[in-house]
């Protein structure tokens, strides 16, 4: 048993899939270089308006301006340029659904797929149930298609191309059911069958000419449908039309069996959209992103996959002075020629765990674009998802509750938008004797359940709580008076609200000299101030200072604060580094 999925007016369906509101309208798809722009595909509503394939753009424009006699908004035809990216996305979605249903799939044509359903009745039920199930899955990825199930692949293909909706042909009644179909269906299907697939422009033109000749011959004989062709005597037909004639007769009778040429499922999950007019605001772009993300997630779901990396590429109307945009030439092919020489803005979301929630993706992309605006209006966009196995988590009854990864990602993105990038995350200590030798990594939840084995700490060893430090970032410049080589009095050079360090030193311990990285090149002072790298040489002191209670009520209270100060040996300047707390 075989099923055929056929999408009538595929270029129209690819566009309607990206813009579902167009499904209620008459849509015509144009292609060609001006002035030779012609209609190449129409939907049924456009045909009812009187539009035809091959019309020029000017002729088609008449239908998009003048309302039909019914005089409603759907009476106007919508004209769209053909979009190869959207057709590729629609085809990939079709393949995803088919491969989720059965691994034995033949990619017969961009608009036609053949599925081998042998043995699947125990999994999915009767053929009618399988057909409805398949149709429902196609609708989830935004595609409406004709589905036919028959005993052989060619009969299923003819039925799908000839009858709209769902068609089930019981074994043995193929000739009867297919008999009413016009010969055009047979010849169209015969042309795309794998046995007859031809490459090259000249052979294709020759084949088309031959096909027209056969059609003319058969029409002259009065043969216009499958039934009359099936009734012709085989030998007489072979003597007049050759082997092709017998093949066509066999197909018209719904006979014959062939092996499917199986294809692999698509490895890339990408959705693309070309915008009719440039989009300038994030709100408008969000609608488009939402639609594309929903389709992407539906495709991933059809294949039982998730993603851990989402790449957004925006083609901008003009180049901006920004290092983050690149031209199309720097990207990997294939991209259509008409996108060349336009800047591409790319952002990548790397997720700590694999996810498949379009709303979460949308929010993350919104926050990402808010933090990194493209800088120019968007005319085309691509969203690519790197497939990954979905997250599996085995929670324990006695494990502590942890934040949900999806919500946590959004929270982290929101926090980053408030405090800036790399200001929120996990502190990771570096293997260095330098003070402040750490970096901030992206926060990601570890799998809990394995108890943390910390390195032996002071509190473990002696049952004492270690004295903690509060770091003053940046270090506060000090003016220090020395007495017998030791700090005696000090005052901070810049009195800020944060720290008011001044007074007589009650007690001091030091100096502890530390230096390092003296073998590296001396960096410029401004770079050294920003980045904790380059050589350092300092003398550290622990000091106790009197501090006055700043509380208005207890202003006379005097306490002691312990500071860590240091002298930069290279410059001789003093800084307050930390407070013991």
């Amino acid at each position, binding site marked *: 048993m075989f099923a055929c999925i056929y999408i009538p007016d595929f270029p129209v369906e690819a566009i309607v899939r990206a813009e579902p509101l167009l499904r209620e309208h008459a849509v015509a798809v144009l292609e060609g270089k001006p002035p030779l722009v012609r209609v190449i595909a129409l939907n049924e509503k456009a045909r009812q308006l009187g539009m035809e394939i091959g019309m020029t753009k000017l002729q088609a424009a008449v239908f998009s301006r003048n309302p039909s006699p019914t005089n409603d908004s759907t009476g106007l035809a919508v004209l769209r340029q053909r979009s190869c990216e959207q057709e590729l996305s629609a085809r990939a979605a079709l393949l995803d659904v088919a491969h989720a249903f059965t691994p034995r799939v033949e990619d017969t044509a961009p608009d036609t797929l053949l599925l081998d359903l042998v043995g699947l009745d125990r999994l999915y039920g009767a053929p009618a149930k399988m057909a409805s199930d398949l149709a429902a899955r196609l609708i989830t990825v935004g595609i409406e298609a004709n589905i036919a199930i028959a005993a052989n692949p060619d009969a299923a293909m003819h039925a799908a191309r000839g009858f709209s909706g769902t068609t089930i042909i019981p074994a043995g009644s193929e000739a009867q059911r297919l008999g009413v179909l016009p010969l055009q269906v047979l010849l169209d299907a015969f042309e795309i069958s794998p046995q007859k697939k031809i490459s090259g422009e000249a052979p294709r033109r020759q084949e088309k000419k031959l096909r027209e000749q056969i059609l003319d011959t058969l029409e002259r004989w009065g043969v216009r449908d499958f039934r009359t062709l099936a009734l012709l005597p085989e030998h007489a037909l072979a003597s007049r039309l050759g082997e092709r004639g017998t093949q066509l007769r066999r197909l018209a009778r719904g006979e014959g069996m062939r092996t499917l040429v199986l294809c692999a499922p698509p490895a890339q999950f990408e959705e693309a959209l070309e915008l009719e007019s440039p989009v300038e*605001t*994030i709100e408008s772009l969000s609608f488009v992103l939402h639609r594309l993300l929903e389709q992407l997630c539906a495709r991933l779901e059809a294949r039982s996959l998730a993603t851990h990396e989402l790449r957004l590429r925006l083609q901008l*109307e003009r180049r*901006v002075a*920004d290092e983050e945009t690149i031209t199309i030439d720097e990207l990997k092919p294939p991209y259509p020629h008409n996108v060349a020489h336009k800047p591409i803005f790319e952002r990548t979301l790397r997720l700590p765990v694999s996810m498949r929630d379009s709303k979460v993706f949308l929010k993350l992309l919104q926050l990402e*674009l808010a*933090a990194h*605006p493209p*800088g*120019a*209006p968007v005319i085309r966009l691509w969203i690519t998802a790197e497939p990954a196995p979905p997250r599996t988590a085995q929670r324990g009854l006695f494990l*502590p509750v942890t*934040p*949900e990864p999806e*919500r946590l990602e959004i*929270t982290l993105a929101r*926090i980053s*938008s*408030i*405090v800036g990038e790399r*200001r929120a995350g*996990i*502190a*990771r*200590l570096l293997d260095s004797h330098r003070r402040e030798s*750490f970096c*901030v990594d992206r926060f990601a*939840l*570890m799998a809990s*359940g394995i*108890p*943390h084995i910390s*390195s032996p*700490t002071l*509190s473990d060893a*002696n049952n*004492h*709580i*270690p*004295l*903690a430090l*509060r770091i003053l*970032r940046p270090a506060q410049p000090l003016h220090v008076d020395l007495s017998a080589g*030791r700090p005696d009095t000090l005052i901070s050079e810049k009195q800020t609200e*944060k720290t008011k360090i001044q007074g007589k030193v*009650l*007690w*001091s*311990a030091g100096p502890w000299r530390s230096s390092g990285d003296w073998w590296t090149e001396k960096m410029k002072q401004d770079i050294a101030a920003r980045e904790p790298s380059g050589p350092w040489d300092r003398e550290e002191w*622990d000091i*106790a200072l*009197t501090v006055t209670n*700043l509380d208005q009520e207890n202003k006379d209270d005097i*306490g*002691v*604060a*312990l500071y860590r100060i240091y002298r930069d040996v290279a410059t001789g300047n003093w800084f307050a580094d930390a*407070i*013991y*707390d």
Partner: protein
Amino acid sequence: MSSVAALPTISVRRPASSLRAHIESSLGERLSSTLLLRERATRLTVPIGIAPLDLLTGGLPRGALSEITGPPSSGRTGVMLSALAGATQRQEVCALVDASDSFDPASAATAGVNLERLLWVRCSQPANVKRNAIGMKYSSPGFAFSSVLEQVLKIADLLLQSGGFGMVVLDLGDVPMESARRVPLASWFRFRRAVEPTATVLLLIEQEACAKTCASLVLRLQSETIFVSNPDAFDRSQYDLRFVSHNVGYVNSAVSISRSSSVGHASLLRGMSFRAEMVRSWTQRKPPQSVGTHFEMRTAL
């Protein structure tokens, strides 16, 4: 007489709890629920990790706001790190909103904090100035936050709404008291309400209590004694100083050096002791001001 007979009869020998249950069952819905005494829900607590403080407070209550206050060098950070160490070692995910960017990862690691389970949010620097691209009217809601306190409050909101955190610490230890007092009380009420139905410990580190009645536990810390290895180098007239005697060999040599000359290594900081005072507690309605304890912290030497 008939109305008197209709009233429930109460045996005076019954215990109070059974009397109360009897009255409530007899009066049924006629008694407004607002008039009934509500028993305080028992809250789960997590240990701070410092035995005297755990004995004093019973631990930090979950689903409530706790405040640890004190001036600089009063042990607030040590207490915070101890609580964080306990939480992260219980595999809980914690968050530290660091208003003044003063968190020291090295100290935290020494205290036993599992840094991989701690989300550190550094607030002190102003948000990055973003390009206002021509032709792109993207709104950037985050970059209007100029004040650090606004950042802290906004981030705390986000973290509490996100849920799943075992402990959220707002470190306002270096924020001037004048600024901290200006935080509207409504914010603390909102935080309290947000954290109530969860198992999150919301901990506030600051110089002076500012959450008022929203806090379930307020602990005031004060430095008491500084332990150094050579007390001679300290001006005793102004501050209590204690000699450390457990490291005899080292201290003796230090003393001898100190007496012979004024070489810098004459004195070493060995630790501090602190006094903790419980100002407010969820277990006691009015804890006396004198309820306090002492604890010590040592340097890594």
